[in-house]
Each structure stands twice: as structure tokens, then as C-alpha cells.
């Protein structure tokens, strides 16, 4: 039997990968594909970041200085699409690719060729999307939420945007199916569900969210397409439809989408804090149940994005209370992270710094979310910079910080080299200061009444906008340190041990650093 197995191995890819560029085009290896996803995400992070800096540069002073309003609107729209679909989501899928097989004792992802396809759709989809900036009439400028009837005024870019979103959706659905099949089918013997690392748990639940809502987004944008080109009346009141209906369908996707971007972050933080507090995670089971509860609630809160649009009173009340309910499982999580650190033997390496900053700053974003959940208060906050401040607090020092933490935490495992700790800490401090200088003043701007998505503003908003722009450039340019540090670590550096971190536990730390090309060719024993 063993001789059969080994000839079988050579025949079916357990041998060395092909060399050169071809390797990356045809690879079915979860580590290669994870690397591709992460590098793609980093590229998009800088492209989306450049757009953000154009926005902030224009907003440094009142009046129109740098770009015309139409281009400004293209930047706000594209910045969101690029950051959500190009930077944050692919980064989490990349982490899932690298880590899930190693964490559950699997040889690879369950459907490796589909895995390759999921990734390679993305660069093409973003080629379509970004190419619209160079078309007559420019890119989409009606906001990433694509509300009709405004979005139907988009020029030549329109079908490109819609079809690019279809491609991204297909990629996400396939990625999610692969993750579910991997987790449910490829766990090593003994790796029961309730022994899975939390990153695996949060991704399992996220994958379900993706499968449930990405097709709904596909449906919504298909209706936009047929309304524009084929004479349907889904969002035309004259034909018996309703533009508000788009908002309902869109946010049925959109709200679970924001949890798609934060649940894997919860998983990462739940892996990192125990390592550097040198204590097991406090309340493992409650973490799992809290994640599942948040996922469930995410399906029944969508209309809190639409309080001011007009809804029956019962709807306003239901969506208000359902939204506030999310604070309960989220509170459980924050409590558990703090309790894990309580009386721990803590050290503060870069991943831990990012993780602690996540807990504090994400919680600020959570609190401002709770304020926005109050329907009568939201009538004031809606479409102001307060909303911008809120979701950037959960997305940047939330989702993005967790990705940074994960990169520093697992980079030594992936590359076999330690990153430059001094540079990492410098990157952390510049980022954490930059991000707060950038987004904290936006709360005040919003409460004072500055609307979002405008290129010009009233004079009294000048100071806070200037401060915010200074923070933006500080934060933006500090990310070059991150890119430099990552590239240097890939190229070389001090040798990392197999366990890397003194307090690290889990199957991935039993492998060599870097791990073998095929993680586990036979199933490891899990006790």
C-alpha cells in the first residue's frame, strides 16, 4: 500500500511546485493562494488608501482646491468598493487559506482548484472596476451603496461596475463554500467542533453569512442592470416599484456584510490575546455562541441603515431594538478578551499591541454604533460625518488592525523569519496615533452637522477637517513601514523557531517555520 501511495503522490502534486510565474497562475496550494490573496489585498489597500488621501487632501480646507466635485464623488465611491471588496475581504480569505488547513490538521483546502479560481477572478474583477476611472464620464460616483435612481445616471462605467460586482460575488461565494467544506470535512481526527481554534469558528460562521448574502447583492445589482437597460420597473415608482426597495435588498446584503468584515477579526484577536497574556482564552464556548448570535442578528437589523428614508413606525422600533441587541453578544466578546488579559503574564509584541488597540478602538466604534441604533437620534446623525467616524472606527482600527496583527503574528510562521520588532512597534504607534487623529475629530464634525460625501463644507468645520487630514496622511504614509517590514521579512531576517511565540498553542505552531509545502499529508493526532 505504501508504495502505491508514494507513486500516487508524485503523480498528483505532492512533488515540488513548478517554477516562475506559472506556479502562481496554476497553483492549487492553499499557502500559495493565501499569499496571492494577501498580496492582492495589500495592493488594493494602497490603491484605496491613495483615493482616501485624495479625499482628505480636498477636505483640508473649505472650497474646491484639488479635484472637481464629480471626481471627488468617484473617489468616495471607489475608495469604499476597493477597500471593502478588494482590501478587507480578500485579506481575510487569504488568512483563512493560509491558516485554516494548518489549524485543523488538513492537507490543503477541500476544493483546491476552485480555490485558485476564487482568487484569480479578483484581479480581473478589479481591472474591470478600476478601468471605469478612465472611461468617458468617469467611474461610478453615486456612492458604493449604488442607490437608484442616482446610480442609474452613471455613464459607460455602469455595466462594468455591475459585472465587476458579479465577479467579486462569485469569487466570495466559491471561497466561502471552500472554507465550509474544508472545516466540516477535513478536520483531523479528534479535532471536534468545540476544539477548533476561534479563528476557524469565526470563519465558518462568516462563510455562511457570505453564502447567504452575496447572492442577494447579485440579485440587487441585476435589478439595477435590467432597470437601466431592459426597461424593468423594480425601482421605478411610476411602474409600481420603489427606489426604497433597492435599499432594503441592498442592506439585507449590506448589514451581514459588515459582520463578514469583523467576525474573522474577532477570531484573530481571540487567537492573539491568549498567546501574549499566556492564559487560555476566557469563555471559549461563550465566544462561539456570541459569534453565532451576532451572525443571526445581522440578518434582522438591515433597516437601521434606512431610519430616515421612511418606514412604518413598527419597522423603526423593531430595527432599533434588534440592533441594540447586538451589543449583548459583542459585549460578551469584549468582556472575554479583557478577562483573558486579567492577571495574565502580558508582553507587548507588535501583534499584541495591535490586538489591544483593536479591543479599545473597536469598542469605541461599537458604542457610536449603539448611538446610531437609536432611531430618533439617528434622524440627526444620519448621513453626517458621525456615521463616517463610526464605521471607520470599526473598519480601520477594527478590521484592518486585526489584519495587521495577524500579519505580524503569523508572518514568522509563514516565512521562517522574524520581522523587525522595532519597526513593527514604530508602525503600530504611528498607526494608532494617526488613526485617532484621523477619525476622532470626525465624530465632532458629524455632531455639528457636517454631511458626508461632500467636497466642500461650511467654514466652521475647517479646524477639525484639517486635523483629520493631518491624521490621514500620518496614518497613510506609516503603512509604507508595514509594507517595507513585510517585504524585508519575506526576504530574510532572524530565524524563527517552530513555536515562534512562547505562549502560542495550536496545530500550526507544531509545524516547522516555514511549514512544508503540503501541510499535513497524513492526519495529525489531536488530543
Amino acid at each position, binding site marked *: 500500500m505504501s508504495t502505491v501511495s508514494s507513486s500516487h503522490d508524485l503523480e498528483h*502534486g505532492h512533488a515540488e511546485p513548478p517554477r516562475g510565474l506559472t506556479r502562481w497562475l496554476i497553483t492549487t496550494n492553499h499557502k500559495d493562494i493565501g499569499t496571492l490573496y494577501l498580496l492582492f489585498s495589500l495592493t488594493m489597500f494602497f490603491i484605496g488608501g491613495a483615493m482616501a488621501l485624495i479625499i482628505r487632501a480636498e477636505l483640508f480646507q473649505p472650497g474646491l482646491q484639488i479635484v472637481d466635485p464629480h471626481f471627488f464623488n468617484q473617489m468616495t465611491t471607489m475608495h469604499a468598493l476597493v477597500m471593502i471588496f478588494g482590501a478587507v475581504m480578500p485579506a481575510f480569505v487569504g488568512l483563512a487559506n493560509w491558516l485554516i488547513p494548518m489549524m485543523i490538521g488538513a492537507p490543503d483546502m477541500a476544493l483546491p482548484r476552485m480555490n485558485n479560481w476564487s482568487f484569480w477572478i479578483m484581479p480581473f474583477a478589479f481591472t474591470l472596476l478600476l478601468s471605469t476611472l478612465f472611461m468617458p464620464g468617469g467611474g461610478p460616483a453615486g456612492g458604493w451603496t449604488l442607490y437608484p435612481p442616482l446610480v442609474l445616471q452613471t455613464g459607460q462605467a455602469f455595466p462594468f461596475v455591475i459585472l465587476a460586482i458579479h465577479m467579486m460575488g462569485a469569487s466570495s461565494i466559491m471561497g466561502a463554500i471552500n472554507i465550509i467544506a474544508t472545516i466540516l470535512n477535513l478536520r483531523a481526527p479528534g479535532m471536534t467542533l468545540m476544539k477548533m481554534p476561534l479563528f476557524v469558528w469565526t470563519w465558518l460562521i462568516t462563510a455562511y453569512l457570505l453564502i447567504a448574502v452575496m447572492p442577494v447583492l447579485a440579485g440587487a445589482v441585476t435589478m439595477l442592470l435590467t432597470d437601466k437597460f431592459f426597461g424593468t420597473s423594480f425601482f421605478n415608482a411610476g411602474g409600481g416599484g420603489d427606489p426604497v426597495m433597492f435599499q432594503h435588498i441592498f442592506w439585507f446584503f449590506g448589514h451581514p456584510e459588515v459582520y463578514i468584515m469583523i467576525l474573522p477579526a474577532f477570531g484573530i484577536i481571540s487567537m492573539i490575546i491568549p498567546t501574549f497574556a499566556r492564559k487560555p482564552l476566557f469563555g471559549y464556548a461563550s465566544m462561539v455562541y456570541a459569534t453565532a448570535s451576532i451572525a443571526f442578528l445581522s440578518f434582522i437589523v438591515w433597516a437601521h441603515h434606512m431610519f430616515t428614508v421612511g418606514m412604518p413606525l413598527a419597522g423603526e422600533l423593531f430595527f432599533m431594538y434588534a440592533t441594540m441587541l447586538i451589543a449583548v453578544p459583542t459585549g460578551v466578546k469584549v468582556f472575554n478578551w479583557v478577562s483573558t488579559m486579567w492577571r495574565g503574564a502580558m508582553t507587548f509584541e507588535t501583534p499584541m499591541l495591535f490586538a489591544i488597540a483593536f479591543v479599545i478602538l473597536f469598542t469605541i466604534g461599537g458604542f457610536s454604533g449603539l448611538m446610531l441604533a437609536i432611531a430618533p437620534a439617528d434622524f440627526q446623525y444620519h448621513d453626517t460625518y458621525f456615521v463616517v467616524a463610526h464605521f471607520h472606527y470599526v473598519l480601520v482600527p477594527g478590521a484592518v488592525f486585526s489584519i495587521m496583527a495577524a500579519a505580524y503574528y503569523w508572518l514568522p510562521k509563514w516565512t521562517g523569519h522574524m520581522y523587525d520588532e522595532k519597526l513593527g512597534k514604530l508602525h503600530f504607534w504611528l498607526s494608532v496615533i494617526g488613526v485617532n487623529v484621523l477619525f476622532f475629530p470626525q465624530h465632532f464634525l458629524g455632531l455639528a452637522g457636517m454631511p458626508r460625501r461632500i467636497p466642500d463644507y461650511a467654514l466652521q468645520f475647517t479646524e477639525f477637517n484639517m486635523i483629520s487630514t493631518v491624521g490621514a496622511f500620518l496614518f497613510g504614509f506609516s503603512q509604507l513601514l508595514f509594507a517595507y517590514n513585510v517585504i524585508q521579512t519575506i526576504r530574510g531576517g532572524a530565524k524563527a523557531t517552530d513555536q515562534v511565540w512562547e505562549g502560542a498553542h495550536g496545530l500550526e505552531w507544531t509545524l516547522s517555520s516555514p511549514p512544508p509545502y503540503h501541510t499535513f499529508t497524513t492526519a495529525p493526532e489531536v488530543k
Partner: protein
Amino acid sequence: MTQAQAHAPDHYYVPHHSYWPIIASVSLFTLMLGGATLLNGGGNTLLLVGLTLILITMFGWFGTVIRESEKGLYSDQMDRSFRWGMGWFIFSEVMFFAAFFGALFYARAYSVPWLGGETEHGALTQSLLWPQYEAAWPTNGPEKIGGFFAPMHPWSLPAINTLILLSSGVTITWAHWGLIQENRPQLLKGLAATVALGFLFLSLQAYEYLHAYQELHLTLGSGIYGSTFFMLTGFHGLHVTIGAIILTVILMRSLAGHFTPQRHFAFEAAAWYWHFVDVVWLGLFVFVYWL
């Protein structure tokens, strides 16, 4: 290599690298670029090239998988991965249809009654926008978009189509029993009957569309009724077409002697998909045609 050899229980099976996914990405990109170009008023060359490339990809990729499967390379674990994959793919399709059903329910429960002045919310809408509009279903809205039309009657062709699809659900199960009991003639007859019923359904659906456009003046542009009617039945028809093509392939593979009573997931996946289009049709019949 026999099946028993390939299923070394102590060893994972990992499919080797493949050119098909990257070819699929290029094909999809060409197709989308072609689609966008055509919608913007350009030619259809790119679209046709994209479609051809997609077809080549499907032949090539599925062909590779079928050959590997027939060589017995796939382990039981791989089989389970395929099952999870297909199952959740079908669920994602269900959610795609849910978006359109949601649009139908929203229009009928909220937007049309509001346009007709129902509730405080709607009263203002009606008096300010279209004071003379009375809510009804079917409707093409206060502006009578698309002009006069008659709705589709449920108890004629659609009812027959319901019977056809339900019968095809029976024939495919009968074929499955044939496969499990190693009764090849029953497998082939059952599959052939299912494929025939599928294409019969599609022909009748095409006839119904013709009838709608030419005699009822019911078109895709007939306001919200026409939009929901044609988008829901149209996407369903597309899925029946895909399902019927899948079943045809399964029929051809059965003729070629593929599948054993123990291992025939391709057949089961096709059957799952067929039952899924069947169930969607029942929803359509009740909510689009009947109620």
C-alpha cells in the same frame, strides 16, 4: 489504477495543479467585458468570444474531473467535499431567487398599496404624486409603464408545466433507484424521460413567453408585474436549461457506462439541482401565477 488502491485511508488526496481555473478567469473576464461593451452600444464580438471560451473551459475542466473520477482517484473524503460544495452552492442559488421573491413580496405588500394611498405613509405619496391611482395586482404602476396588458392565467399552461416538472422529479428518482439496483435500462429510461420532460417544459415556457408578448402585451417592460414575472420565470427557465444540460451529460455518461451503485455523486448532484429548480417552480406557480 483500481479504486481500492487509490483510497489509501492513511493518506490525503490533493488534486494536482491545473490550468483550467486561470483559463476560466480569462474566459469570465472576456465574457463580462463583452457584456459591458454590448450594453454600452458596442458590438457583440467580445461577448461571443467570451461565451466560446467559457464553453471550452467547461468542457475541459469538467472533462478532467470526470476522467480523474473514472480513474478512481477520488477518495471518500473528496466525495464528501463535493457534497458540501454542491449543497451550499444550491443554497446560494436559493438566496439569489430569494432576492427576486423579496422584490415581488415587497412590491405587493408595500410599494403598490402605498402608491394607492394605504397607511399614513402612502396617503401623502398618493395625493402628491398620482392622486387617481388605485392599488391593484397585477399592475404596471400609476404611469402604466409598458401600456395595457393582460396577466398570465395560472390554470392553463403554467399548471401543465407544474405537472411536467413534478413528474420529472418522479422520473429522476426512478432513474436513481435503477442506478442503485444496478438496473441500467431503468436508469437510462428514467434519465431520458427526465431530460425529455425538462426540454418539454422549456418549449412550453417559450410558447408561453410568445403568447405573453404577442397576445397579452405582457412584456419585461410591463411595470412591476412584468418585471417580477419575467425576471423570476426567466431566471428559473435559465436554471431549468442548465439543469437539463447537466442531466443530458449525466445521461451520456450513463450510456458510456459511468457510475456504480456505490459511487455516483455526479448523478446525485444533478438530481439535487433538478429538485431545486422544481421547488423554485412551485414557489413561482403559487406566488407569481396563482395568488
